[in-house]
C-alpha cells in the first residue's frame, strides 16, 4: 500500500498527538508523586524544624512537650540497628554463599530459593508475631533489645540473602575458573576472589535493607517494645524504644505541641535514612570504578 500525501500527514499527526498525550500523562504522574512528597516534606519541615535542636537530641521523652527529646529512641535505634546488622549480615551472606557457590542446583535449592523470595514479601507484622512467640516468650528474652534485634534480623534476612546472591552473581565466572586453575579450593576461591569483589555490592544491598528496617515500627510494637523509656539501654536484655515508635507515641498524644516533637523526630529519621543511602551510593560508585579500571 502506498500512502498518499494527505493520508500520510494525517497518520503522522495522529501519532504525534498520541505521543504528546502519553508524555503529558507520564510527566503528570511524576509531578503528582513529587508534589505529594514535597508537600509532606514541607509540612514536616514547618512543624519540626523549629523544634529540632541539640536539646531535642539529648533529652529523654517527657510529659511536657517543650522538654521532650528523643535521646532514648535515638540510642535504641542505633543499638538495635548495630545488633541487627551483626546478626543478619553474616547469616545472610553465609546463606547466599552456600546457595550460590556450594549448593547443587536441584529441586531442593529451587524450593529454598522460591521460599526466600516469598519470605521477603511477608508483612512485617507477621515477623513481629513470630518474634513475640519465639524470642520474647519461648526463649524468655522479654521485650528486650536482643529480642527486637533478632526479630528485625529475621525481617531483613531474606532481603539480605537476595542482595548478597545478586552481588555474588556479578563476579565473573572466569575469575573463579582462574582461581581453581591455580589450585585454589572452593573456600579459598570464595574468600580471596568472590567475596572481595562481591562485598561492596552485598553491603550496598544490605544497607538499603537496613535503612528500610530502621523505619519499621509495626514488628516492634507487636513485640511489645515500650513507648515511654527515660533511660539508655544498658545491655542486651534492656528494654528499649526506637524513633518510629516514639513518633507513633507522640502523634497519638492529645497535646498539639507533641506533633511538633513528632515532626522533628521524623526529620531526624529522614537524616539517618539519607545518610545510610548516601553510604550505599558511595560504595556502589567506588566498586564500579574499581571493577572497570
Amino acid at each position, binding site marked *: 500500500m502506498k500512502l498518499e500525501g494527505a493520508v500520510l500527514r494525517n497518520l503522522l499527526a495522529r501519532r504525534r498527538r498520541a505521543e504528546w498525550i502519553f508524555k503529558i500523562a507520564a510527566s503528570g504522574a511524576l509531578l503528582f508523586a513529587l508534589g505529594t512528597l514535597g508537600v509532606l516534606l514541607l509540612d514536616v519541615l514547618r512543624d519540626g524544624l523549629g523544634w529540632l535542636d541539640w536539646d531535642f537530641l539529648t533529652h529523654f521523652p517527657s510529659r511536657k512537650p517543650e522538654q521532650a527529646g528523643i535521646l532514648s529512641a535515638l540510642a535504641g535505634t542505633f543499638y538495635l540497628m548495630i545488633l541487627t546488622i551483626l546478626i543478619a549480615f553474616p547469616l545472610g551472606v553465609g546463606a547466599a554463599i552456600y546457595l550460590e557457590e556450594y549448593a547443587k542446583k536441584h529441586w531442593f535449592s529451587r524450593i529454598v530459593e522460591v521460599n526466600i523470595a516469598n519470605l521477603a514479601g511477608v508483612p512485617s507484622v507477621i515477623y513481629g508475631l513470630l518474634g513475640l512467640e519465639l524470642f520474647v516468650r519461648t526463649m524468655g528474652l522479654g521485650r528486650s533489645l536482643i529480642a527486637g534485634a533478632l526479630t528485625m534480623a529475621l525481617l531483613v534476612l531474606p532481603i539480605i540473602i537476595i542482595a548478597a546472591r545478586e552481588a555474588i552473581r556479578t563476579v565473573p565466572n572466569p575469575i573463579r575458573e582462574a*582461581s581453581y*586453575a591455580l589450585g*585454589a*579450593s572452593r573456600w579459598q576461591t570464595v574468600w580471596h576472589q568472590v567475596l572481595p569483589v562481591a562485598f561492596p555490592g552485598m553491603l550496598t544491598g544490605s544497607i538499603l535493607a537496613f535503612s528500610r528496617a530502621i523505619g519499621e515500627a509495626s514488628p516492634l510494637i507487636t513485640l511489645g517494645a515500650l513507648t515511654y523509656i527515660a533511660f539508655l539501654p544498658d545491655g542486651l536484655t534492656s528494654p528499649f524504644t526506637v524513633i518510629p515508635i516514639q513518633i507513633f507515641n507522640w502523634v497519638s498524644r492529645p497535646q498539639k505541641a507533641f506533633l511538633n516533637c513528632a515532626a522533628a523526630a521524623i526529620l531526624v529519621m529522614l537524616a539517618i535514612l539519607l545518610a545510610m543511602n548516601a553510604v550505599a551510593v558511595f560504595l556502589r560508585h567506588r566498586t564500579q570504578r574499581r571493577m572497570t*579500571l
Partner: protein
Amino acid sequence: MTPATVETQEELTQAFAIQGLNSWYGSFHALKGVSMTIPEKRVTAIIGPSGCGKSTLIRCLNRINDLIPGFRVEGQIAFKGQNLYDPALDPIQVRLQIGMVFQKPNPFPKSIYDNVAFGPRLCGEKDRSKLDAIVEESLRKAALWGEVKEKLKQSALALSGGQQQRLCIARTLAVGPEVLLLDEPCSALDPIATAKIEELLMDLKKSYTVVLVTHNMQQAARASDYTGFMLLGELVEFALTAKIFTNPTNSRTEAYITGRFG
C-alpha cells in the same frame, strides 16, 4: 576409530596418555572416543572448527571441567603414569601440576604483584622475599618483567590485553607446574601481542609441556611440534605438525587445512 599414533624418530617421554576418552555435558556427548599421547616438553596443538570439543578436551586434562554441573567423563587419562581421574587423587593436586591459561585474559581485579603471588600464597608461602623472587622470576619467564617492574602495585586491569594474557601465563608459572594448557590464548589479542605470545611459547617449551588449543591454523603450523585435528567431538588425526600440514592422512583433515570447510 583406531587410536591416533605419532610416527617419529624422536625418543619421546609421554606426558599424557589418553585412552578412549568420552565426555558428556548432561546428555550431550561432547568427546567421542579420543585417544592420543601428548609428549613431554613439546608444543602440541589441537585444531578444529568452533564447537568441535577442543576446549572440552584440554579442560579434562586439569580436571577444571569437574566444576561444571552435569559434566561426566569416561575413559582414561594418565599423566606420567598416574590416572588423573583416580577418585583418591585430589583435583587440586592435579591443577598445581597442570596449569591453564584461558581464551579471554582473566586477571584478578588485584595488583599485578598479587595476581602472580596468588598461587604461591595459597600454597602457604608467606615469606616476603621469597614471594618477591617468585613474582620476578615468573614475570621474567612470561616476558613481562621489563614492562611492569615499575608498577607491580598497580591494578592488573589497567594492562593491555596482551600484557594481561602474559600476566595470566606468569601467574600460572608461579605455581611451578609441569604442563601449560593454553585455550586459544591469542584469540582476543591483536597480531603484535599474538606474535609476542608465540615467541614466548618457543621459550617455554624448553621447560614445559605445552598444549595449545587454537582455531588459527597458521598459529598451529608456526608454534607447534605436534598437531591433533578434531571434528565433532572426535580426534580425526594426530601427527607431527609438518605432516598434518603437508601430507595429512585423512581426507577430512586435508579438507580442513586447505580451507574447504570450518
